[in-house]
């Protein structure tokens, strides 16, 4: 086994080095920026940005829009991941049978990930308009008598955006769970059936444990991708109306490119990174009953 050790590193080094250079440097860059007072003019080089320590962080934490953004990000991420997982899992179970046209349907389910967000985001904005499809449908069937302000009120926007995001993320959870499911040997299910297990027990005691690595990966990557979401929110509401639907990313972008507070924008990103880092460490420390690894 020891004889392998150096070869193992060969397998690992390319990725590590690559990410260290191209991944860590931007993190450091933003970190440094977050401690300075950077305006568009100084950023362009027409002056020196002053070092102001933690001042950006203090201002951000005091900002009520930031506090709203924390709340929004939690709701957005929590609901998105939960529903994406449930729907993706259900679809994966469904597609775990063979049937005609399955390949076609499977590739169509990837559509939410494939369409340019500019277009799918605009569709959902149109759908949730006061005069949009959702309200038309509800009004027509008499469920409501006045249009619901899905994206024009103080409270609904973040929920409507979350609904759109759930749609966006389904391909991701679906395909990962589906491939994982397909790797589970049929014999396991068959012998469980013989022992009298019903479908629910089969899922709980066979499927989920065997899918643990995939599930944790979905949670981890899903969290990262969801917290990073920017385009969808920007297209649907630009963080509004009146700043009610900002997430960390949109608020950071707004600070940078609307107000030209590049230092503050970076400090917000650093906070976001720390938050996600915390969450991912949490997810990945749950002791997955690891199959014996080597060495």
């Amino acid at each position, binding site marked *: 086994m020891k004889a392998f050790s150096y070869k193992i590193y060969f397998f690992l080094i390319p990725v590590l080095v690559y990410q260290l250079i191209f991944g860590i440097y931007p993190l450091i860059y933003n970190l440094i920026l977050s401690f300075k007072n950077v305006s*568009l003019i100084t950023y362009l080089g027409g002056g020196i940005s002053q070092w102001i320590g933690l001042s950006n962080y203090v201002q951000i934490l005091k900002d009520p829009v930031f506090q709203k953004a924390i709340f929004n990000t939690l709701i957005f991420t929590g609901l998105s991941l939960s529903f994406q997982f449930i729907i993706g899992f259900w679809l994966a179970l469904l597609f775990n049978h063979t049937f005609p046209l399955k390949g076609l349907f499977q590739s169509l389910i990837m559509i939410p990930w494939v369409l340019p967000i500019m277009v799918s985001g605009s569709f959902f904005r149109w759908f949730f*308009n*006061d005069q949009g499809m959702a309200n038309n449908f509800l009004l027509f069937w008499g469920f409501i008598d006045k249009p619901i*302000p899905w994206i*024009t009120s103080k409270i609904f926007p973040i929920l409507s955006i979350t609904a759109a995001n759930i749609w966006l993320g389904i391909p991701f959870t679906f395909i990962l769970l589906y491939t994982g499911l397909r790797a589970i040997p049929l014999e396991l299910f068959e012998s469980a059936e013989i022992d009298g297990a019903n479908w629910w027990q089969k899922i709980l005691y066979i499927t989920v444990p065997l899918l643990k690595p995939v599930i944790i990966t979905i949670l981890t990557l899903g969290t990262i991708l969801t917290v990073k979401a920017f385009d969808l929110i920007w297209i649907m509401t630009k963080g509004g109306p*009146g*700043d009610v639907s900002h997430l960390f990313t949109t608020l950071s972008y707004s600070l940078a490119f609307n107000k030209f507070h590049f230092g503050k924008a970076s400090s917000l990103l650093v906070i976001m990174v720390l938050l996600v880092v915390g969450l991912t460490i949490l997810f990945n420390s749950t002791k997955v009953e690891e199959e014996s690894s080597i060495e």
Partner: protein
Amino acid sequence: MKWSLRTMFIVMMLLVIVFTGFAQEKMTITIQDYFDPANPMGKFIEERVVEFEKNHSNVKINHTFIPYNQLLSTILQEAITKTVPEIIMVNNPNIIQLIKGGVLKDLTDKVKEWGWENWEDFLKGYRDNGSYEGKIYAFQITGNNLALFYRESFLEKAGIANPPETWQELKEQSKKIKEVLGITPLAYDAEASDEGSWQFYPFLWSNGGSLLELDQPEAIEALQFLTDMFKEGYIPRDVLNITSQGDLTPWFMNGEVAFMINGCWEFGWHLTSDVMQQLGDVKVTSIPVPKKGMRPIVAFGGESYGISSNIDPAKYDIAWEFLENLLSSDNNLKINIDSASLPTRASAVEKILTEVPILEPFLEQSKYTLPMALMGGMENYGEISSILWVAIQKAFTGVATPEEVFKEAAQTIKGIFSPEDYEMYKQVARELLQEVSKK
């Protein structure tokens, strides 16, 4: 073995020298903007490029297109890495920041050579916006502003003889149209972006208000008027989230609204001649004013070009030559015809009426337009604009009253400046407003 390696090496070096030599034979100048070559303004630039290359066989002009919403961030990246193209398009409100950031080259000497009368032929607002401390950095080549579009047949159906001239009339007519036709009559852009702010300026400035003094009654009245219109259901709620003013026009064309606040470019965009013929009743008038007899004071928009401060000195003369040609009075007229925009030179401005007569109200208003950046704290304009649109949206969605949101906004805005700077910018805005309000 060694001998053939050495030969190979020499041959390679020769090839490299030859190729780089060839590469340097033609001088390449890049002009970067957001004019899609498939659309009129882009086509116009491409034509000028072809023309210029024909007359200068050793020059290649590269017209690069970047998406509209990426303009500033692209220039930022380029500025930081010192890769700014020779000629760049700059957004109206950002010119002062690019000047102060050292991105644009001081072109005053070239203008002197060209002839001072050429510079002075550009209308005053554009000259103010493209220069700083007496030095010239950018030239605006297209202009536009906002006016009130309306469907004449809708007004007739509601028993209205003439389009509204005052805010009161706009409100009353909207009420009538809503009763008779059942539509939300006025399309006004209240999105969370610069377009949302800029739609507000006609109402703010015509009433004598200022961006730097939003807590004054003139500003609050303007917001109150629009908020009331919104709350009474005379403005569709969806205006809070549209992508741009261009999204208002399909509603207008579909007859879902009777009035629309939009810009002259629409006649080169959605409201083409066949659409106009099909609809048959599209008319334009100047933006309604607070009280009868007052003058509508609007902001001007449009595109400007400048030259990179990092330009290779060997390329400077040629780049200027190309730009100078673009700025000629004839071209100033031509570039604006197909896109229904306003020329920016006095010698060309009136001529557009023979080509695009419907621009008349816009032309009238353009005599009293103001530059947004100078009216809003210059390099701090971006931040002030974002505070404004958030306040408007808060008032519309009922988070607080117009008075409350503007008092809060004015506080925040004041806090951006040092007390002396604030006074100075406040004065600048007041003076500019007074000048155009003079009878």
